[in-house]
């Protein structure tokens, strides 16, 4: 399948050997040389040659083609997380670029294979996606393009309403739940060995109290869902009044959302890791002298920071290098933390040489949230000139707010938690005992964008069939939004939240 020129193939083998020499461990990686138009097309489809028909891929394609044609951006590389791994090289790129891309891709492949957050990922996604496409095309043939497309549009508007952590959690099985149920039916009293002591050990008040608690618990389990559900797509798929083909489309879109989720959860790490290795492999082993400048040009282009922007490649690579340096020099642990002699800290070097080992461990166990939480240091923040920006209503522009380390870290973690998207869950599927759906927004101090919120709510209502309610906060006032299929109602509820109720990261 691979269609590399003999020269590229020679370099590929060389780079592969170097990468393996450093301890990288990849799936088999198949490189294909394609034209810029093909690469734009694949990129529009998220890396997959066959996806179900939808206009947004066309929109994506148009934007990519336009910005390539106007010279605004081009895609250097694309790699698909499957086994074997597929990666694309663009025809007409310089040799040095192709080498860089191959080294970078091997970094990604190693990450895909070894990072634990990718463990539940379906590695045969190429086939799965093609399968999805066939199913949706069949529905299109049977029910018409407009009907199916309209339904897909509605579900895509809820694409982000999944529980990203659920693949990593084992839910209690049905049997365990039944046991629990049985246990609950008896009133739990304290154990008594002598009958005559019973009324003293378990007095009537205590028995009543236990009964009451049990009744409460029982009524809670009557509520449906018993616990708030974050996988709203799954919930709708199971409980909304849908036809089979509609359920199937939800399961398709949900599957794909779960497939892409770990890539979003490890963006900084994944890009940082790949950049770390392309830089190491290229500068240490591969580049010839005459290629250094072009390499530096391309590398610095990828690492560039837009003014005020934040570049995952840059933050990632710098953090990995920082970790390696710290563990090489032993700048961690109790002694290091408790040392407050600036001079001693500056010259601290225990010559442990643990850096390489440490970064491999980090790439296996962490995701972006835990990565930043664990390894972002004050020193690093200062060195990389990091700050928090805010929108100033008075001047109408974004301003630097603070460089305080605590604030930067807090903002950073907030941005990464749930991809910086609001957390919404199904609270009650029989709200007000009328079969209405109640969604709650776990408010973290930031309002949702009202017009998007209302449109999305309308889409949920179409799927649920009955009126849909959303409890959230707008302009510091808790509110309930209700859409009954015709009109949006906005009802103020409760007291404004206190100022301190701001973001705590969830895991």
């Amino acid at each position, binding site marked *: 399948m691979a269609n590399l020129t003999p020269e590229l193939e020679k370099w590929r083998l060389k780079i592969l050997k170097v990468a393996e020499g450093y301890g990288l461990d990849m799936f088999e990686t198949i490189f294909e040389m394609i034209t810029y138009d093909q690469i734009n097309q694949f990129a529009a489809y998220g890396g997959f040659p066959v996806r179900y028909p939808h206009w947004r891929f066309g929109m*994506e394609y148009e934007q990519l083609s336009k910005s390539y044609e106007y010279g605004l951006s081009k895609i250097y590389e694309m790699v698909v997380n499957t086994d074997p791994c597929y990666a694309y090289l663009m025809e007409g790129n310089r040799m040095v670029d192709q080498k860089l891309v191959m080294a970078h891709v091997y970094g990604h492949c190693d990450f895909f294979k070894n990072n634990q957050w990718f463990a539940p990922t379906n590695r045969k996604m190429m086939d799965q996606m093609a399968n999805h496409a066939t199913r949706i095309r069949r529905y299109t043939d049977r029910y018409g393009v407009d009907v199916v497309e309209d339904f897909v549009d509605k579900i895509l508007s809820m694409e*982000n309403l999944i529980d990203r952590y659920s693949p990593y959690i084992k839910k209690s099985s049905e049997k365990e739940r039944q046991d629990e149920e049985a246990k609950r039916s008896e009133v739990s009293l304290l154990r008594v060995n002598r009958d005559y002591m019973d009324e003293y050990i378990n007095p009537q008040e205590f028995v009543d109290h236990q009964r009451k608690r049990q009744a409460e618990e029982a009524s809670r389990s009557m509520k449906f869902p018993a616990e708030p559900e974050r996988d709203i797509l799954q919930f709708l798929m199971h409980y909304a009044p849908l036809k089979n083909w509609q359920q199937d489309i939800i399961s398709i879109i949900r599957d794909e959302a779960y497939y892409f989720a770990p890539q979003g959860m490890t963006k900084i790490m994944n890009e940082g890791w790949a950049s770390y290795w392309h830089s190491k492999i290229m500068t240490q082993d591969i580049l010839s002298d005459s290629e*250094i400048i072009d390499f530096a040009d391309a590398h610095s282009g990828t690492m560039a920071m837009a003014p005020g922007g934040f*570049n995952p490649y840059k933050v990632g690579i710098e953090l990995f290098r920082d970790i390696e340096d710290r563990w090489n020099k032993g700048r961690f642990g109790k002694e290091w933390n408790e040392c407050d002699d600036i001079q001693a800290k500056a010259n601290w070097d225990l010559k442990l040489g643990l850096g390489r080992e440490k970064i491999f461990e980090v790439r296996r166990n962490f995701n972006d949230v835990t990565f930043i939480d664990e390894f972002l240091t004050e020193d690093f923040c200062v060195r990389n000139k990091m700050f928090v920006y805010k929108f100033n209503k008075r001047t109408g522009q974004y301003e630097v707010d603070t460089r305080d380390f605590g604030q930067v870290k807090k*903002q950073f973690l907030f941005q990464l938690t749930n991809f910086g998207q609001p957390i919404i869950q199904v609270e009650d599927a029989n709200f007000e005992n009328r079969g209405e759906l109640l969604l709650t927004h776990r408010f973290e101090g*930031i*309002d949702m964008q009202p017009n998007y919120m209302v449109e999305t709510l309308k889409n949920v209502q179409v799927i649920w069939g009955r009126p849909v309610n959303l409890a959230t906060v707008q302009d510091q006032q808790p509110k309930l939004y209700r859409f009954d299929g015709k009109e949006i109602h906005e009802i103020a509820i409760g007291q404004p939240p206190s100022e301190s109720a701001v973001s705590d990261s969830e895991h």
Partner: protein
Amino acid sequence: MAIREDHSRFRDIIRGRIKENFKKYVSQGEMIGKRENDFVKIPVPYIDIPRFKYGPKQRGGVGQGQGSPGDPMNGEPQEGTGEAGNQPGEHQLEVDVSMEDLAQILGEELELPDIKPKGRPKMDAIKNRYNGIAPVGPAGLRHFKSSYKRALQRYISSGVYTPETPVIVPIRGDFRYRSFKPVVQPQANAVVIYMMDVSGSMGEEQKEIVRLESFWINTWLKKHYKGLEARFIIHDATAKEVDEKTFFSTSESGGTLISSAYKLTKEIIEADYPPNEWNIYPFHFSDGDNWSGEDTRLCMRLLQEFFLPNVNQFGYGQVESKYGSGQFAKDLEREFPNDDRLVVSKIENRDKILGSIKDFLGKGR
């Protein structure tokens, strides 16, 4: 390929949305300010899929770079670059629509017939564009950056580069030059001449209507004539030729002699646009007041003797104003009751612009 299918589906959706709002665009003219060469930016409602998300202004974020607390940041904050396609992106609510597409939609909406050009077929002119780099060329076209890069590469690969004394001396082989490619450009063979009455009775609103109307006429004519030329004449009691910007911003006062503009137009055509080679479209916009019956008669004679035999079509648009009597349109209609070459259209307000464009362009001349 599958992407073509999805792409044309996307284009259809956009066109559908644009068509829904077409009337609004025409009468509000918001797209005229958003022109960039051959594209206009048109806002499209909800082309990105609505989701629950945070409002952007409250969000804030982490950035990197210079600046003290309180300093404004340059530009809007952006998430850095990344590989495409992994995550749902946020899209602008504006799409670029080419002028050609726009003309197409205009044509479909108004059921306009295609124009049949007269005269000689188009001539193509060849022009050179400097957009490449070549190893040979005249010294005047030397490209500094490329040349420097070549020299630096040579230094490093031959091992004589020392970072302590970074002196680079280029040799002949290092130099790179700008180079050109010939580009074929079609020769203009159509001209549109806009005349506007700027006497005291024409107010801001009237001029805005003329502006919108002329934009759409231009769009349609450009679809048929690649290198359309446009000339602008303003007049009160006397006429003068101005540039496009002045045309729409000038406000004069005083009387009105329509014949002054017609005479000037006649001179321009005679000097620059021989009628047997050019497709000529004069458009005159006024509120219909003329100084005297004598002058109106002079205008009619000019139309009869010079304009109508020589132009593709003569358009007269009468903008309603509270001072104008609207007499000139009546005079024209009486004088040339059934002449295809003369189109008279009355534009009472913005909502009538579409209808008026149809009047002007509906004959396919």
